[in-house]
């Protein structure tokens, strides 16, 4: 590799090539890692950007996250798992984190870091299943930044890059520090990042978007630099809005006063949209720092006074927006601590007269209802307020009217004593008005509310009507529910945002751009693999796997092998399995694979694997459990792997594979029609290719033929005869029941092994016959004659090349070995699209109980399609590991077979690309010595894969 080169100029280009050719093959970086780090500052700037990304991925894959980094501290807060590993370290860390950044939002950072690791799609979708445990980072996946030289050298060599002239380099370097650097060192990225804000407007926006995430995760980092986020009037609206958001995150008690002063200036900005945002930001600030609430509310109230001067004329929509925003901010502030803001509510109510914006009015009225029983003054003024509202009711906007109704209802519910009558009168007046309103929403609401409070009155004994008690109670509860106080603490906003690696395009557009890769799994790259990868053949193979293999799994491949082998072993040998007959899981596992159609793995290997199984039984159990869930990821650490594993299996590279055990049961043979009832006097003949292999001669293909009598009369004397042979041997026609044993011995195999004739077929009856046919050509149809009731019907039997092969069970290694021996002209490839799985996935969606992996669904549907259209043996399914949930790229299925007539092996590999939910692009590759046959088979496969599934 050129990455080896001494010259920095070459390395830059080599890095770019590496990133575009084999970005996953991080093991290649290993040997040169140190040199690359040292050379990094001298590489030309564009190369630096790429190289930094590669090095970061390598370090993560090699050593895992850094214990002292931000990313880690949150992991330890949540997963007690890691606490076990180093409780002393953790406690130290927690302390450190608290005094370093008391306000560090751990949950948020946790989300972010997980998103970095797995890609948000995967993470978010998984958290919805609520089984986060599957991604438990154990302590071993972390390394100490202080003790690990590789991490140290990376940080050391990237830190001068923070001074680079190229903003992209700075951001890339900052990203490395953000993820890897010890907490106390993260500070150093802040100034350079902020300095980037001074570069062009376009990059300013991008940088701010990244700062936004940083600041949300660790506000304390940016808190001292709040001045940098002050806004210039010349900036674009997006930048202003971002700056406001960041300011509201990083405001602290010490800086808030100057920030508020700024905000006051912004409110008078000619850009009213921005002013409205500012008001909202004030609300946010106060929610973070309740101390400032009083000052802010005063300021906001003053604003309402100011605004409604213009509001009288209502000449601009945006002014209305500001006012609404003001009231909303006030509302959110009051919500935090209602009792202390009683006066504010009163002031707002007084101002009702002048506030004309419907939304704002509605909100004030809502507040009246919500806090109607609060303090001492409000209850006293309620009567007046309600009277005032009732008086103005007809002229209000619908929105406001709804709120008035609600409020009156709420007040009525809580009312006691003298006021009640007044309220009741107002209420009934309003209901009457509302019921005749033009707006149907309003009429509906009125009818609903009319019913509700009556119960309240009944229970107080003021209404003569006597309802039975249970209903009464029920109504009461309903009323409570609908009108009840909603002052419950609002849950902290769910982090619905998606987070991507800092500096990535995806972070800006907030969806995973094609090609976006989250960080590799920590410690997925092991030292052994580095050594293994030195050999050229292995390197090639590793590239074949496109780096998606979890190298960690190679530590105990025999476990995995045995897990998937077991079933086939059982099905073939029918062994009693006495050593583990006690495990019910095993039997069911075996049953899955009992179908002879699918033999997941090599049989010849079984004895060797049995070794491994018996030696590593306990670990195997867990393995099989996951296997039962049709997934066999392995990410056990090398340290924890079984010591007694056979040596030779350690060396083998294996990829993550799934066993698609139960597919066999679902394989449906496609049936073709040979004769339809219309032309066959009510006799319907269907045939399908069977996967059985002829016992007579290897040139024969087995066909299952179904005869069905669709007519109302009995059909008798049905037989199928080869037309040509029929002509030749005229004598041996109609009842040519030839002894089969005589045929087996004969050398020249007849075109058709004559079938047993069906004596008679009752109406509606179906009979099945196995036909053994020898096709002369694998594309041309065979002409046959069907005799029934003494009539001769010519029919054509079309061959299916998919059944001119028979399964050839083999191991993956053997497969790859054979494949590598059939290169060049013996290898044919085609691509096509595949859509079957979409139906499958949609089906899955409906079925919430059975949450299946999307990959699995794809594999299954793909394998099913293949196996039901051709007589093949599924060798292996390779799954990508490092991809996100939605991206099926890297999935690879291998099928093996041999040509019936010549016993030449024929290997088929299907690679999948594309998103799970979209049509997938398949690349089909056939390796076969017989060129013509291989090509035809390839075309056949491509054709049937494209065909939509029959449902």
């Amino acid at each position, binding site marked *: 590799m050129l990455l080896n080169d001494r*010259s*920095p*100029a070459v390395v830059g280009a080599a890095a*770019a090539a590496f990133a575009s050719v084999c970005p996953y093959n991080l093991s290649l970086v290993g040997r040169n890692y140190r040199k690359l780090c040292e050379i990094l*500052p001298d590489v*030309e*700037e*564009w190369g630096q*950007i790429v190289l930094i*990304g590669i090095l970061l991925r390598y370090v993560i894959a090699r050593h895992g996250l850094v214990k002292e980094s931000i990313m880690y501290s949150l992991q330890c807060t949540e997963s007690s798992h890691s606490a076990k590993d180093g409780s002393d370290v953790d406690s130290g860390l927690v302390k450190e984190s608290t005094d370093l950044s008391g306000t560090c939002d751990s949950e948020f950072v946790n989300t972010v870091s997980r998103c970095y690791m797995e890609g948000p799609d995967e993470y978010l979708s998984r958290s919805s299943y609520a089984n986060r445990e599957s991604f438990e980072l154990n302590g071993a996946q972390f390394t100490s930044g202080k003790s690990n030289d590789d991490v140290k050298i990376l940080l050391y060599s990237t830190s*001068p890059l923070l*001074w*680079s*002239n190229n*903003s*992209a380099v700075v*951001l*890339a370097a900052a990203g490395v520090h953000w993820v890897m650097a010890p907490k106390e060192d993260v500070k150093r990225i802040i*100034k*350079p990042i*902020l*300095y980037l804000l*001074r570069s*062009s*407007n*376009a*990059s300013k*926006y*991008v940088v701010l978007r990244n700062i936004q995430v940083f600041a949300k995760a660790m506000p304390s980092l940016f808190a001292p630099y709040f001045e940098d986020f*002050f806004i*210039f*009037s*010349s900036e*674009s*609206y997006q*930048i202003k809005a971002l700056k406001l958001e960041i300011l509201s995150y990083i405001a602290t008690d010490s800086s808030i006063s*100057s920030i508020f*002063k*700024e905000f*006051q*200036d912004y409110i*008078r*900005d*000619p850009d009213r949209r921005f*002013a409205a945002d500012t008001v909202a930001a004030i609300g946010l600030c106060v929610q973070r720092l309740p101390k400032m609430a009083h000052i802010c509310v005063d300021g906001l109230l003053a604003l309402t006074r*100011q605004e409604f*001067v*213009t509001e009288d*004329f209502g*000449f601009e929509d945006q002014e209305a927006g500001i006012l609404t925003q003001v009231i909303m901010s006030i509302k959110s502030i009051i919500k935090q601590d209602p009792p202390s803001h009683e006066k504010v509510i009163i002031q707002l109510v007084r101002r009702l007269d002048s506030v004309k914006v419907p939304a704002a009015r509605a909100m004030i009225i809502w507040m009246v209802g919500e806090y109607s029983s609060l303090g001492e003054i409000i209850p006293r003024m309620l009567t007046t307020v309600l009277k005032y509202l009732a008086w103005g009711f007809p002229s209000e906007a619908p929105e406001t009217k709804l709120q008035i109704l609600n409020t009156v209802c709420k007040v009525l519910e809580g009312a006691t004593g003298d006021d009640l009558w007044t309220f009741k009168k107002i209420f009934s007046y309003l209901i009457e008005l509302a019921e005749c309103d033009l707006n149907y929403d309003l009429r509906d609401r009125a009818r609903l509310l009319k019913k509700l409070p009556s119960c309240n009155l009944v229970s107080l004994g003021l209404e003569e009507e006597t309802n039975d008690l249970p209903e009464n109670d029920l109504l009461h509860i309903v009323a409570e529910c609908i009108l009840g106080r909603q002052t419950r603490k609002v849950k902290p906003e769910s982090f619905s945002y998606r987070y991507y690696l800092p*500096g*990535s*395009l995806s972070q*800006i*557009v907030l*969806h*995973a*751009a*094609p*090609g976006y890769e989250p960080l590799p799994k920590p410690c997925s790259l092991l030292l052994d693999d580095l050594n293994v990868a030195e050999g050229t053949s292995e390197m090639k193979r590793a590239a074949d796997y496109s780096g998606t293999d979890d190298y960690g799994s190679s530590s105990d491949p025999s476990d995995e092998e045995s897990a998937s082998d077991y079933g086939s072993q059982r099905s073939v040998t029918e062994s009693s399995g006495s050593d583990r007959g006690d495990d019910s899981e095993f039997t069911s596992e075996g049953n899955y694979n009992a179908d002879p159609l699918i033999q997941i793995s090599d049989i010849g290997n079984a004895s060797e694997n049995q070794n491994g199984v018996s030696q590593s039984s306990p670990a195997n159990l867990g393995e099989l459990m996951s296997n039962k869930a049709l997934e066999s990821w392995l990410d056990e650490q090398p340290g924890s792997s079984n010591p007694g594993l056979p040596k030779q299996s350690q060396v083998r590279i294996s990829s993550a594979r799934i066993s698609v055990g139960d597919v066999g049961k679902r394989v449906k043979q496609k049936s073709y029609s040979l004769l339809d009832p219309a032309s066959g006097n009510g006799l319907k003949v269907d045939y399908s290719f069977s996967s059985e292999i002829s016992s007579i001669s290897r040139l024969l293909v087995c066909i299952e033929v179904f005869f069905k009598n669709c007519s109302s009369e009995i059909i008798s004397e049905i037989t199928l005869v080869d037309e040509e042979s029929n002509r030749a041997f005229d004598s041996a026609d109609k009842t040519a029941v030839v002894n089969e044993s005589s045929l087996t011995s004969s050398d020249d195999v007849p075109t058709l092994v004559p079938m047993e004739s069906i004596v008679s077929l009752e109406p509606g009856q179906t009979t099945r016959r196995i036909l053994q046919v020898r096709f002369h050509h694998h594309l041309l149809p065979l002409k046959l004659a069907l005799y029934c009731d003494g009539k001769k019907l010519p029919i054509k039997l079309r061959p299916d090349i998919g059944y001119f092969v028979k399964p050839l069970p083999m191991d993956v290694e053997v497969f790859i070995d054979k494949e590598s021996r059939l290169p060049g002209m013996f290898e044919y490839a085609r691509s096509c699209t595949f859509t079957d799985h979409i139906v499958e996935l949609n089906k899955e969606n409906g079925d919430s109980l059975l949450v299946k992996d999307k990959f699995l669904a794809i594999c299954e549907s793909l394998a099913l399609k293949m196996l039901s259209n051709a007589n093949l043996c599924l060798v292996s399914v390779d799954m990508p590991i490092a991809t996100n949930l939605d991206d099926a790229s890297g999935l690879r299925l291998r099928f093996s077979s041999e040509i019936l007539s010549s016993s030449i092996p024929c290997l088929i590999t299907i690679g999948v690309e594309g998103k799970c939910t979209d049509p997938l692009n398949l690349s089909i590759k056939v390796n076969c010595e017989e060129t013509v046959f291989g090509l035809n088979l390839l075309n056949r496969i491509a054709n049937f894969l494209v065909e939509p599934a029959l449902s």
Partner: protein
Amino acid sequence: MLQCIFLLSDSGEVMLEKQLTGHRVDRSICDWFWDHVISQGDSFKSQPVIASPTHYLFQVVREGITFLACTQVEMPPLMGIEFLCRVSDVLSDYLGGLNEDVIKDNFVIVYELLDEMIDNGFPLTTEANILREMIAPPNIVSKVLSVVTGNSSNVSDTLPGATGSCIPWRAAEPKYANNEVYVDLVEEMDAVINRDGALVKCEVYGEVRVNSHLSGLPDLTLSFANPSILDDVRFHPCVRFRPWESHQVLSFVPPDGEFKLMSYRIKKLKSTPLYVKPQLTSDAGKCRVNVLVGIRNDPGKTIDSITLEFQLPPCILSADLNSNHGTVNILGNKICSWTIGRIPKDKTPSLSGTLLLETELERLHVFPTFRVGFRIMGLALSGLQIDKLDLKTAPSRLYKGFRALTRAGEFEVRS
């Protein structure tokens, strides 16, 4: 990786299209882009990263020309944006400005430049000095020559020697009769003054620009008298990081010709050279404006080309503004600009007048922000001083020059 670069004129016409990879990007993406620009206005134009249905677009707007780059896959967005900025810098450097006509006149050069700057979607040579060696900048002689000979290419036949050397930014062994180095400090002052007249923020962004014409492979060291005042720095790739880390000395092998050695930021300055005192009082459908401008702390050098600009609020019908010094213009889109020039000795320049508000409006509730521009020659307002400039491999004679200049950057006065 970038797949395609488009240059659009301010009317949305595709002036130039440069496909970078095998995957052709259809021109229709520009139509899509321009449709959105028209329908969404400025807010779309100021979005640097746009996710279109088929591609991700990076956009940089310079002097009315939109540079668009397309990609379909994940890449650092700053890489795209930074590259476009470099392209625009290089182009304006080559063509002596950037506008539609100049680009259309020099298509060949622009294509040649893009060819060198980006290769298969990956930025390659972006250093202006090296590009100059490969592609001769346009001038009268070459134009005449190309017309006469019909040979339109001005790509030089030889690769610049630098590509082979370990210092890619410097051509091999240039020769000069007189060795000269000029160092310019160019500073921009950003300041925000709030409504109360208090200084909210005052910072200086500076650049050290070096113009070197030195023979051989010179190794320069530049040190400042007061490096401690520097808050942030960014360096040209030629600067060695370690000496700066240890004792804040700039040690570098300069490229040939003019380049930006470093840029820096100095924060929390205490005062501005100018004061601007706007007064706006508004009642009865009118708004009286009175703005005073004067020198606060005399920096010791003359303050040149003072300008004042502000956007009139949208609710204003007409404006009647006069000044006792300089000229007042109200441009289209309601920008009022007051060109003062130098401040006279005998009087304080003031702008006064009335704004007539829209009819229903009683008084003005939004107030404009004034943007101030000025220039001071021969002075670095930050107070940063260059201590000395040494050449390690001393040639026979070295001429060193030093200049300083301060301009207003984002100097805003709120009213």
